[in-house]
């Protein structure tokens, strides 16, 4: 039997990207940041669910059962109330992505501009296999070395400069397939 009921129902698994993220552990600094964030919702603590998950995912790469339980406890909620949020939103994930997570826009204007080709080229250059990916359940594919992962995103609200993508928090526009190598180069040297 595992320690927590959530542990059994959660889909976390080890990926090549896991090694780039520290395991979940609350620190006084992080908790202070979280406590401050909760004050933004004076009328209902539950409203802080999404922001807390963002803070944790940003630091630890993904949302483990432990972290979900921690958030539930902090906000005085049943863990399922937090898990149902995690499982709904495409922006939350339960396994580690690559160190650099690339989200390529697949919607109409970008597709017309060649975002499908861009995705193919990125996968070719990074050795990522998307054959097991599907948009609902397994949107993310990680490279064997764990440095890169890819995911198709829906319209990133920059259709006039298609094709576009996000690499972690950096936005890139006009990224045709020919520019994929240059794009990845920006993240290869950096450690």
């Amino acid at each position, binding site marked *: 039997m595992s320690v927590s009921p959530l542990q059994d129902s959660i889909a976390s698994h080890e990926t090549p990207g896991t090694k780039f993220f520290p395991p979940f552990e609350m620190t006084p600094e992080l908790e202070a940041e979280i406590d401050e964030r909760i004050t*933004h*919702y*004076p*009328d*209902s603590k*539950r*409203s*802080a*669910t*999404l*922001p807390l*998950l*963002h803070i944790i995912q940003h630091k630890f790469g993904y949302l483990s059962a432990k972290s979900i339980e921690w958030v539930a406890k902090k*906000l005085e909620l049943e863990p399922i*109330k937090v898990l*149902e*949020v995690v499982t*709904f*939103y*495409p*922006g*939350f994930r339960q396994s580690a992505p690559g160190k650099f997570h690339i*989200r390529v826009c*697949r*919607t*109409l*204007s970008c*597709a*017309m501009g060649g975002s499908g080709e861009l995705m193919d080229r990125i996968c070719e250059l990074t050795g990522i296999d998307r054959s097991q990916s599907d*948009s*609902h359940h397994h949107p993310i594919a990680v490279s064997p070395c764990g440095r890169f992962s890819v995911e198709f*995103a*829906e*319209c*990133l*609200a*920059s*259709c*006039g*400069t*298609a094709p576009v993508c*996000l690499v972690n*928090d950096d*936005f890139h526009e006009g990224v045709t397939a020919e520019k994929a190598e240059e794009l990845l180069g920006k993240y290869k040297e950096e450690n």
Partner: protein
Amino acid sequence: MITYSKPPHPREHRLIFKNVDRQGWDTSIDCYLQDGGYEDLKKALGMEPKDITGEVKKSGLRGRGGAGFPTGMKWTFIPPNNTKPVYLICNCDESEPGTFKDRYIVHQDPHQLIEGMVISCFAVGAKIAYIYVREEFPQAAEILEKAIEDAREKNFVGKNVQGSGFDVEIYVHRGAGAYICGEETGLIESLEGKRPYPRIKPPYFPAALGLYMCPTIVNNVESLCHVKHIIRMGGDEYAKLGVPRNTGTRIIGVSGDVKKPGYFEIEVGKLTMRELLYELCGGPKDGREFKAVIPGGSSSKILRCDETFKIKGPDGSERSLDFMDIPLDFDTLAACGSMAGSGGVIVMDDSRKMSWVLNNLNSFYAHESCGQCTPCREGSMWMKKISDRIVDGDASPEDVETLESVAYQIDGKTVCAFGEASSWPVEAIIAKFREELVAETDPKNAEKPHNAESAAQRKFLAGESA
């Protein structure tokens, strides 16, 4: 003299985008103040809140988020004897495919939005406001938080704003990558820390029963920015921009198959499609012709570029109007059977297959349905499956009919307007390009099994061992 790194087209009229691409412009509060920033807020604080709403009503401002509902009128829907707190929410989810305008406001001119929001909060009596920013704008969230902090330091936000006795706090709330959070009641659920399942209207009109079941005004980023200009100019002056019932300026974003895609702030109704596509966007790509245009975000009905519309004027008289002569306003686009929506214009030329366009949009809606109501959840998925078959060359002519019937079974039968958003593109593409779609099908395909299971079943029924 204002100079721009990307100069506006001479046909533009810039209010909201005055500072976008402006040389020497940055997001700091000092830059904003040097440019006369927050003067309109000071003016508004000297007015009666109901007079601010009065000016917004006079201005004729219609919401820029999609539905085009009059902003001033929405504000008056807060129940008159309300004793609960009132909230204001700025909708910066900007996720309707084809729409890219709020992005530039929040990344380049955050104080314009904050000033518009504080004025609006004062008008409707909101002491707490949230900016719901889509998760895919991480930099915007940071810029906005810094801007709010700076505005608080200078007492444009916080307690007793500029000595007026009015208190207001603004917070940034980040979404997590779901389109349905743009729908105002889905957004509210999301802000309450839940799955963003839209609420049924009635009774959950946000102005009466919104965030925490309190009166809540939800407005788009661009709409809230306009409020500031309405206060500066006065409602009557503002209403002189644009055309009657379709006043002011709005930002149009053009993407797809044009020589020069981009954003343009124009007076509503003062430009035609032809002027937009040829003068501002440089026409079609070399050797190509315009085929179809989605005029107001992916959820609006597609129009053929060779179409002629019969439309009724306000006096009941009928006239015919060619696609290229459609003025870019709310009412004419509605009369042509589509809508101005969010101002996102997606252009397709003759190199595009409509089945591929349809399939791309169906994939979007199948992915983004919140799953709460059956017609939408199941229908959006089936529409994608059928259009998958068409693009793969595995469809029969009947599939086109089935696809059409699925769309009509969603439209009007769901909790929120996502149902229309997902079915209108299908209905319109089939109505207008039926022959093209049918030409990609083959009656023989009706005989084919569609998946491994049905192939196995067929073999079994035929007496062959599986």
